[in-house]
């Protein structure tokens, strides 16, 4: 039997991050409250393994009938989510384990434990009416008795079964790291349809692509509201570039957020969802403004007579990074959310599209030094590092809500398509190709 735990192998950078996160989480709560799964992960990583090896047998049908084969297909979606997280090495397509039969469970998991599995997910599937429920039972396969370290019931309508699989994956990640995974999220993006840029959305893994505008004009820069109910975007649907808000999951008309002369662009919701930062040129040149949604009041933040644009919020809601040409070229600056205390972040290159990470410690941005590439920097300007180095142009980054992944656009394959990568630039991989160019992705918060 293989044992691929390799003592002495140095921790991967990401594994180290997870260990750190788990330790921080552990130190901030009494030992009794720390999940047993986190202990398993810490112990596994301490041996030098880079990932946690988990086996997910097909789910065990305990009630109802399963004509669609969800017991086989859901574990595959969950497995793909866990693999994407870069924390797990997953084995699937294993026969289901009988429910309520400890001997069968020991026998089934025993082989995998011997082969190096650290954890096993036993899913009990109930299909009742139009609802699907999985009782997910997580076992520590490094313990002699394969002790149960966590269990939870997750339920969705059967016609959203894929979301059920995503939620299971997010719970598994939650068990091991203390923070929910990001599999139950969506991407909004711009796709070209019959020569027009229209807004689209899809699941974070590319499933369920759906067009959400059909106005035959130019639609740009979609961004999700924190409550995931709306998308703000710029559109030329009425001829001029106005800023709009649409509600893709509700039957509500599109709202105009800003329709001033000039440009109404680059929307960014504040973390509390109450304010939209944006660019307006109504006063004579592009400046950063704040729009209070409840009152419709605008407040101007910048005053420099040249271009100020592309605001992005710190997760505290107290600071905003933006792009300005006040120092020549284009550079990233940070200011208070009232517009004061402006300080410069980037020093060289032509730098645009700043995106403040949800964890607050990093600003990703696009730098043009020949081609476009993605870079990252701390908000105080330190720790500047490059995330992509071609091929082609790499731009338009958006953070996953746990700040571990980014989605971006790249024309490395010929035309622009969407890719994901880890926050250190590794594991760059394509999302499914659109019919036309796909650009300007916005990664949603976790769906409610």
């Amino acid at each position, binding site marked *: 039997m293989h044992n691929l735990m390799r003592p002495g192998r140095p921790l991967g950078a990401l594994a180290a991050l997870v260990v750190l996160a788990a330790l921080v989480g552990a130190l901030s709560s009494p030992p009794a409250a720390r999940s047993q799964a986190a202990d398993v992960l810490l112990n596994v990583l301490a041996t030098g393994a880079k990932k946690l090896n988990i086996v997910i047998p097909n789910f065990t049908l305990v009630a109802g009938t399963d004509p669609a084969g969800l017991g086989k297909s859901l574990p595959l979606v969950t497995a793909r989510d866990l693999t994407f997280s870069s924390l797990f090495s997953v084995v699937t397509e294993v026969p289901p384990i009988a429910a309520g039969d400890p001997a069968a469970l020991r026998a089934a998991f025993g082989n995998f434990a011997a082969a190096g599995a650290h954890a096993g997910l036993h899913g009990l599937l109930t299909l009742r009416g139009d609802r699907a429920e999985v009782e997910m039972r997580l076992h520590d396969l490094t313990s002699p008795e394969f002790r149960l370290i966590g269990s939870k019931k997750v339920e969705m309508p059967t016609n959203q079964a894929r979301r059920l699989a995503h939620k299971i994956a997010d719970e598994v990640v939650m068990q091991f790291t203390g923070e929910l995974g990001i599999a139950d999220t969506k991407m909004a993006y711009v796709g070209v349809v019959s020569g027009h840029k229209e807004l689209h959305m899809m699941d974070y893994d590319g499933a*369920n692509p759906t067009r959400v505008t059909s106005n035959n004009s130019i639609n740009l820069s979609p961004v999700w509201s924190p409550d995931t109910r709306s998308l703000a975007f710029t559109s030329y649907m009425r001829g001029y570039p106005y800023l709009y808000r649409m509600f893709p999951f509700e039957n509500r008309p599109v709202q*105009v957020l800003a329709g001033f002369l000039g*440009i109404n662009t680059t929307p960014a919701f504040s973390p509390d969802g109450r304010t939209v930062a944006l660019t307006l040129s109504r006063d004579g040149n*592009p400046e950063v403004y704040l729009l209070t949604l409840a009152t419709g009041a605008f*407040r101007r933040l910048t005053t420099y007579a040249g271009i100020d644009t592309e605001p992005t919020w710190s997760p505290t809601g107290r600071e905003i990074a933006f792009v300005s040409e006040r120092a020549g070229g284009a550079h990233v600056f940070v200011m208070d959310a009232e517009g004061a205390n402006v300080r410069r972040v980037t020093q060289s290159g032509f730098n645009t599209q700043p995106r403040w990470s949800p964890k607050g410690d990093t600003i990703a941005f696009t730098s*043009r030094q020949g081609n476009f590439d993605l870079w990252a920097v701390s908000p105080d300007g330190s720790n500047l590092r490059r995330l992509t180095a071609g091929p082609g142009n790499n731009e338009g980054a958006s953070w996953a809500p746990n700040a571990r992944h980014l989605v971006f656009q790249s024309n490395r394959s010929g035309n622009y398509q969407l890719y994901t990568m880890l926050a250190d630039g590794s594991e760059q991989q394509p999302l499914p190709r659109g019919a036309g160019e796909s650009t300007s992705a916005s990664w949603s918060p976790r769906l409610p």
Partner: protein
Amino acid sequence: MAHRWGSAQLLAIPVLALSLFLVGCPKRPATTAASAPAPTGTPAPSSPAPSSPSTPSMTPAPAAPATAAPATPPRPSEFAENANLKDVYFDFDKYDIRANDAKILDTNAAWLKTNDNLVLIEGHCDERGTNEYNLALGERRAKSTMNYLVSQGVQASRITIISYGKERPVCTEHTEDCWARNRRSHFLTKSR
């Protein structure tokens, strides 16, 4: 059966096949086209909560240069090409009017002063900026062009500007020649 634990090797099926058991989405997104009145010069944006119209409250801005257009500009589609007004071009990442382009604008201004049309100035960029920044740069190019015409005696109230950033290029080759052709202000006119 021997299962190997490779690094992130997965026995799963590719995503396209996974979509087989996907059964539809949450409620189908509404694609209702906006059916609001025509845009006004300084509209108050609609907002969900208050019943009384809100006036924008903002910190006072420095005096703006030549104010733009009629209160309700015609839609861009109402303007037409006009061979009498030539395009002007810009340096990379710049929006100032160069000497030779000023001469072209002088000619355009002369025509406009003897033909009482409304004019729409489009500002455009080449592909070498990111999309959002280029919307601002195109806006600055259109504005510089407008300011020059106004300085030559064309009434500001006749002029509307619009930025297209890099969204409406005249060519798509990745060459200096094509890039230079895209960095432009373009003129359209409409009779009053």
